[in-house]
């Protein structure tokens, strides 16, 4: 009998206590961020969309190898001696044409592992988080600044250069003992 009345009392009392709390909250200002109108300032270390400053990229492929997801694909073509590719912003000399620098942002797991090994700090994570798309294909970001023709041109150049070199070598070999030939341009690829 005692527990019966106690239960009744507790039932009513705790409900009232709860109601008091929620009533208080009825008049607390909302914490909501009114998103499209108000946007939070992102912290400086925030990890969102990857960006590649292709001007600084030397095509070293370290980011692609660091990526656990293999969402970065880099193709490079060796430059021939006459070409000047310029230097990166921190003074490194570029030696490779980056013919392809694709990041499939749909696969990316935003772990930032690719950012650390980059010697020129050209790949980094931005604070852009709004990049939804209607088509899946548009989530593959192509960063290479070279057009298709230019890529073909570079490849052709290299081939021509190598052919010439070969010819020279052949000539040299004919003259003297042959040395091991340089290999075809490295074609590292993550997948």
């Amino acid at each position, binding site marked *: 009998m005692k527990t019966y009345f106690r239960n009744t009392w507790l039932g009513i009392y705790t409900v009232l206590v709860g109601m008091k709390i929620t009533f208080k*909250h*009825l008049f607390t200002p909302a*914490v909501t961020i009114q998103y499209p109108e108000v946007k939070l300032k992102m912290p400086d270390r925030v990890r969102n969309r990857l960006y590649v400053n292709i001007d600084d990229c030397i095509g070293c492929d370290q980011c692609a190898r660091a990526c656990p997801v293999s969402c970065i694909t880099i193709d490079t073509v060796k430059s021939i001696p006459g070409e000047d590719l310029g230097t990166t912003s921190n003074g490194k000399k570029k030696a490779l044409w980056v013919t392809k620098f694709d990041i499939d942002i749909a696969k990316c797991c935003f772990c930032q592992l690719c950012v650390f090994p980059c010697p020129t700090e050209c790949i980094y994570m931005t604070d852009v988080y709004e990049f939804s798309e209607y088509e899946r294909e548009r989530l593959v970001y192509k960063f290479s600044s070279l057009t298709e023709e230019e890529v073909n041109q570079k490849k052709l150049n290299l081939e021509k250069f190598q052919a010439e070199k070969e010819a020279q070598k052949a000539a040299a070999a004919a003259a003297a003992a042959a040395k091991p030939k340089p290999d075809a341009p490295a074609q590292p690829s993550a997948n």
Partner: protein
Amino acid sequence: MYQFIYDLTGNVIISTLVTAVFPLVNVLIVALIGVYLERKISAWIQDRVGPNRVGPFGLFQTVADFIKMMQKEDATPTDIDGKLYNLAPVLVFTGCFAAYAAIPFSSQLIGSEVEVGIFFILAVSSFTVAGILMAGWSSNNKYALLGAMRSAAQIVSYEIPTALVVLSMVMLMGTLSLTKISEMQTAYFWNWNILGGATLGLSKFLLIPFMIVGFIIIFISTLAEVNRTPFDIPEAESELVAGYFTEYCGMKWAMFMLAEYGNMFAVSAIVSILFFGGYHSPFGYLGNSLGINWLIPYEQAFWFVAKGWFFILVQMWLRWTLPRLRVDQLMSLCWKYLIPYAVVNLVVIGIISLL
């Protein structure tokens, strides 16, 4: 209301129809505003802002919901019992709608002054039960069936404490008519039943605690009858997905929602009629003091609607505060707590009223 329109048009059918349209409009408005308010209040309680992008302050949110629901495809599951499936929402809605016939919105604005008003409302609410069972059974879905069973059991059992409290009030007032019950608690809040009724004397003060107990009981049990949290187990989303209307979509589902909100208003109205003076103003009438007699019914309607909404707000407030009970606890609350208290309350009120 009926008389007024009958005088105006002189035609039984037209005046009946017009009278019938009024509660329909009321149900629609209650649902539209109710859903909006529910979302807003839950938002405020939870430190959010709630819908605010559709129209000013999100006012058109429910309108948009409604229009969207109208254009949804009427997808029906394959293995359902078509006839009952289609009939169920209508029946549920009828149960809710019929109750409005006897609710006095003001001394003039009343569908039908039936002598057995309060009993009538209790009775027609059983149509809702049948409709719910129908919906649950015909959906051919285990969740729906379980939800319907729970719901029916719940409504049937909670009718008993409701009826007991109503009985004690009927005993006290000596009438079943809602109009008369309202009329007897004359204007000014100290005459309300919750404060012992209009007749002055010892019994008035003796009654007050028992009236409060009665009010709590009937409030809890009507809350259960309209399946609101903490008694929303028929549609307990974490257990039964959406209870008896799991398989319903589009307008048919909207009818269940309309009925739910309509019922919320109906039970709030009953509570306010029984304990809070019905359509009476708590402070006397502006019409009286200004000498404008035609104003009084409008004032009464205002107060009535205001009281109804107040209790709806309390229901929402409770909903966003409390967890829900389990199905057996719900039953034991009804049979072990509410009914004994209600019976004792009934006896005590009977004794006091004999004094």
